[in-house]
């Protein structure tokens, strides 16, 4: 086991290097650059632009810039944002907890909704529960979050406010001013973004749990267990669910990175100061240091979670051998 983990970690090094090369090259392919927007302003003179180019190190050839950047991150220095001149690590440290909070709670709610619902839909296949769950998950997955997010704000914040009902906060993490910052206030701010994220993801998971469960329910070993007189409840929870969970774990493993990378759309709509928004803002501003820093850190996390997921597989299914 230790040997396996070590091998995987060593394998990750060239992979990470490859990722940084690809990401760095992608920034070179992007039309424009951090200074392009100023070029169209009549007041910014070419002499100033040249000076800015030097300041941002853009006058060096690309391979030199890449090696300089790589050397710096090996020393733990992700450089400074070209837009705000703040250290990239500070920016990320500021945003990461916010994203983890939002995405973590959303993931818990997603699973709490999807697993029982998918299970029920599978066990009572072709019942009304099944049909309702299927309908809801199709509808839920068909509505994009930018739309459902705006609708949720218009209904639960604007209309509730207009009707004099206790309205839910539309944006941000806390209420502005001295009244904000208490635990109930923070929780109220989580409701809408978590609900929008969780409903969207849960609709996908519900179908997945249902399909996976249906596959397992038809298998011989369950019929045998049932024939031996095992209670239906124990049969489903202890024997069927554990097997059916495997593909769900795969899906989850793919989802884990968004815990760190954040949800661009939902964070923008609900003005949630998380990683997704940082990524979007940096992309729009051609803020290469921040973009590269974000992608590198998220890549490390993805590689790490992939490893953890493989270990979880082995635990869930003893037939899987790690070498």
């Amino acid at each position: 086991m230790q040997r396996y983990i070590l091998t995987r970690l060593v394998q990750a090094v060239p992979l990470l290097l490859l990722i940084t090369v690809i990401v760095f090259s992608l920034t070179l392919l992007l039309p424009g650059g951090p200074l392009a927007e100023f070029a169209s302003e009549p007041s910014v003179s070419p002499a100033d632009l040249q000076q800015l180019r030097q300041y941002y190190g853009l006058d060096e050839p690309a391979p030199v810039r890449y090696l300089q950047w790589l050397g710096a991150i090996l020393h733990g220095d992700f450089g400074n944002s070209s837009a705000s001149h703040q250290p990239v690590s500070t920016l990320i440290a500021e945003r990461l907890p916010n994203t983890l909070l939002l995405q973590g709670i959303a993931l818990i709610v997603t699973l709490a909704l999807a697993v029982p619902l998918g299970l029920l839909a599978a066990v009572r296949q072709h019942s009304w529960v099944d049909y309702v769950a299927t309908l809801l998950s199709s509808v839920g997955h068909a509505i994009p979050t930018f739309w459902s997010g705006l609708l949720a704000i218009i209904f639960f914040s604007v209309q509730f406010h207009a009707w004099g009902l206790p309205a839910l906060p539309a944006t941000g993490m806390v209420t502005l001013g001295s009244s904000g910052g208490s635990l109930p206030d923070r929780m109220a701010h989580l409701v809408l973004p978590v609900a929008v994220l969780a409903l969207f993801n849960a609709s996908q998971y519900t179908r997945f749990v249902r399909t996976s469960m249906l596959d397992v329910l038809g298998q011989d070993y369950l019929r045998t267990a049932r024939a031996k007189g095992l209670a239906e409840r124990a049969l489903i929870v202890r024997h069927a669910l554990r097997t059916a969970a495997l593909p769900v774990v795969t899906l989850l493993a793919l989802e884990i990175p968004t815990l760190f990378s954040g949800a661009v759309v939902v964070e923008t709509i609900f003005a949630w100061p998380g990683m997704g928004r940082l990524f979007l803002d940096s992309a729009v501003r051609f803020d290469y240091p921040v973009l590269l820093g974000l992608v590198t850190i998220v890549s490390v996390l993805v590689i790490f979670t992939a490893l953890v997921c493989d270990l979880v597989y082995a635990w869930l299914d003893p037939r899987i051998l790690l070498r």
Partner: protein
Amino acid sequence: MRIARRMAVTTTLAVLLVAAPAHAQSGASLQPRTGGTLRMTSLPEPTTLNPYFSSDITIRMLGNLNLEGLTHVAPDGSFVPALAAEIPTQTNGDVSPDGTVVNWKLKPDVVWSDGEPFTSQDVLFTYELIMDPANPVLDRSDYRAMESVVAPDNTTVVVTYKQLYAPYRLAFPRIFPAHVFNARTNIADDPFNQFPNVTTGPFVLTSPATADSITYQRNPRYREPGKPYVDEVVFKFTPSRDVAMQTLQAGEVDATYSLDPSYLPQLESLPDVRVQPAPASVLQLFMNESCPSGPQQGDPSCSHPILGDLRVRQAIDMAIDKRALAQGLMQGRVEPTGSLLPAGLFKVDRPAGDFNPDGARQLLDQAGWIVGPDGTRARDGVRAHVSIMSVIGNRLVEQTVQVIEGELQDVGIETEGKGSTLSVLGGGFATNSPFYLGNFDMAVFMRSVPVDPQVYLYTQFGSSQVPTPQIQTGQNWVRVQDPRLDQALAAAAGTLDDNQRRAAYASFSELIQADEAVIPLYPTLQVDARKTYVEGWGPTNINEPVTWNIQDWWLNQ
């Protein structure tokens, strides 16, 4: 259902429009109340709070709270003294007769928020800071024109220009505290850029911005007694404009700015919200007069096969219904304009070209462009096919291009829309920008109206400003070369007399409209909205973000 709602909203809007002015007058007579917290949106969150390092409107909007300069710009475009005691002019003797020496007298007894006196040394320091090559300053053009900046005493700054510099009043819009930096002028990575806490404005920062908001407190040392009225101003960083409007409706903020004009009817239907839309940028259609391809691409001596003919450009102007565009996209709140300077100190009024599709067809016939069997015109085997470039992602621009395409096809000109990002279109030779290379036909582009239009007009229409690989300066993208335009611009640059300059810009405007290289389509609206209890809010100013008179705002609740 959506349509029905919209119609209902438009009807209420008409009623409100009549009621609004009366309400505004009654507000002015009230005695301002002190205290309270004003909450506003900020779109998006600022990257830096150093206005010399960014051109972002948000940074200027936030800067109005705590940073001050020698002057600020009033809603009518005139310069008003801020830290200067008065605006230097030749009439009051503060500008030398040859116009090269400007004496700025500063207000005495102004103190920084930490109690230190504000003096001419701070202006000197700001000059050195701007000129320090280590700082990523965006625009030094106003300062490169200076020969020297000296301070004979604590309240006088003498700026000597290399030659007469007409936009001299733009100098030092923000002044930095010298004593905080101990004469250290390299401040590229200084925390002050994120947290400017020693300032002279009506508000001060006592703690840095958090991830989702920034809070300004009243500056007890502000020079105007009794002001500001509000204790605290909080800006909530709201990335989506759609959501910014919702937060105003939901009562999470008291004011918001720079909203999409399509929201106007909805905003005006809200009983507790007041809006003051004002013209802002001008949407323009411009045409390349030079060859769009081949070895002479972008060379003004090689005429564009279609657009090089003045009659074709005139026909295009006639084919476009500017009034319908203004009506449809700006809710009828703006008049189409034929002027590139529809507002501000050097405002020039010119009527938009007439909408006359029949006249356009006749002109094209006369020019030899004959309608072919498929409805598209051609001359000597050349099809009347032009591309229209525009910035993608801007709803207003996209809708405008669609309308124009339809109208041009209507008179027999085949069009092709081409979208790209702003950084590509305007990025210069480094990004192979079609505007700089000259390989484009037409473009729809939004440009703001500058406080002082001299540099803006000169770089766009001066004969020497055609961009070439050798001379990459200049933004004469349309490649117009007309000695009369150069003369008018030189006349405006050669005097400090605003009336003479205005006359020069008027003749410039007439010439450029006759050339048809640029067709101003309509001014876009700046839509700022606030709850009715926010009083003291000045008219929306096209040259300064809405917070320009924040010291006069108060909460009537």
